[in-house]
């Protein structure tokens, strides 16, 4: 693995929002109080994640629009095995989580971590090893394109199958 590429992408994609989130949470709770934070601030933030996700999709597909339109079938040939692999790994993880008697809140992210691919690193590696115009680089790009729709499908499956797992104790107690 090219470690600089990985380090950079982790720093920007994970560490930056993590630090910003941690600090601003502390600061807002300290100045405005926990109640304002939970009732007003989080309220405003809730749709932000999904809106940002949708904008990312527009961006991704506009950047790759030419490739998609010029080689639609080849993209399909690559997308099919990737789709099957993602589903297989998801069900393997989800099933094992059930066997391990995890609760739903732990099982869903554990299964999705396995299913999801680190496409930024895969693209960078394939570009470095094989070149930007290579078929390998195209395959990793297809990985990006199917990631969001497929993972959203798996999210839906998770939400519908919550009942398969041990109920989360706190919420369940609150409901009873």
């Amino acid at each position, binding site marked *: 693995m090219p470690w*600089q590429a*990985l380090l*950079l*992408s982790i720093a*920007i*994609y*994970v560490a*930056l929002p993590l630090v*910003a989130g941690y600090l*601003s949470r502390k600061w807002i709770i300290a100045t405005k109080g926990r109640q304002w934070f939970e009732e007003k601030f*989080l309220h405003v*933030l*809730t749709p*932000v994640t*999904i809106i940002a996700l*949708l904008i990312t*999709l*527009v*961006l991704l*597909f506009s950047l790759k*629009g*030419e490739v998609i339109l010029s080689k639609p079938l080849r993209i399909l*040939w690559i997308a099919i*095995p*990737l789709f099957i*692999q993602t589903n*297989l*790994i998801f069900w393997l*993880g989800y099933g*094992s*989580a059930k066997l391990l008697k*995890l609760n739903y809140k*732990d099982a*869903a992210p*554990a299964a999705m*971590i*396995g299913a*999801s*691919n*680190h496409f930024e690193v895969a693209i*960078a*590696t*394939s*570009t*470095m090893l*094989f070149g930007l*115009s*290579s*078929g390998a680089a*195209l*395959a*990793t790009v297809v*990985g990006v394109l199917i990631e969001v*729709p497929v993972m*959203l499908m798996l*999210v839906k499956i998770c*939400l519908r199958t919550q009942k398969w797992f041990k109920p989360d104790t706190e*919420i369940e*107690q*609150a409901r009873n």
Partner: protein
Amino acid sequence: MGPFSKKEVLIMAIEEKTRKLGIFERYLTLWVVLCIIAGITLGKIAPQVARFLDGMAIYVNGAPVVSIPIALCLFFMMYPIMVKIDFAEVLKAGKSIKPVGLTLFVNWAIKPFTMYAIALLFLGVLFRTFIGAEAVDYVKMPFGLDLPVGATHGAGQVVLINGDKMLQVPLWRSYLAGCILLGIAPCTAMVLVWGYLAKGNNGLTLVMVAINSLTMLLL
């Protein structure tokens, strides 16, 4: 706690959340499809805009690694999740060996092999004629290798393209290599978004992403 018990407040919070997310979540598939179409259309109508956005990236060794517009979007995706994480929970999550062990096992002991098997089956056998059994791809020479033109290396042959030595390989093998790279590069930061949308334990997701990413660094 005021007129409501902790229990009631919790129930109200849950119901409030379900209702709020309703409009976005219920039609999410529709939004996704619309955004994909909008993206492709934008790329078609205004390719210069797409190319301009694509050029705004941080490069490592000549390969674009972090696209700035996408990094910006990802920040807005992640920030609301991160700000909700109670770090006392993260410390607790660090002690849950079972889910962390499960993700490590799936990511490193299973995933690369199933990816290889499935990609080989589809690209190398089932779809081989569709891709074109004779179709070739030109890839960079393996690093540090200097072979004469015409020499063979693995499944490839060294050829001269525009004065540069390139390795000519069957196209399906090139696709296979890309798929394998995807298989050995697990878990993006986006998993936090998936875990959050599926109402999972965000603190635990963060720990698992961190541990899996660190493992990838070590390998």
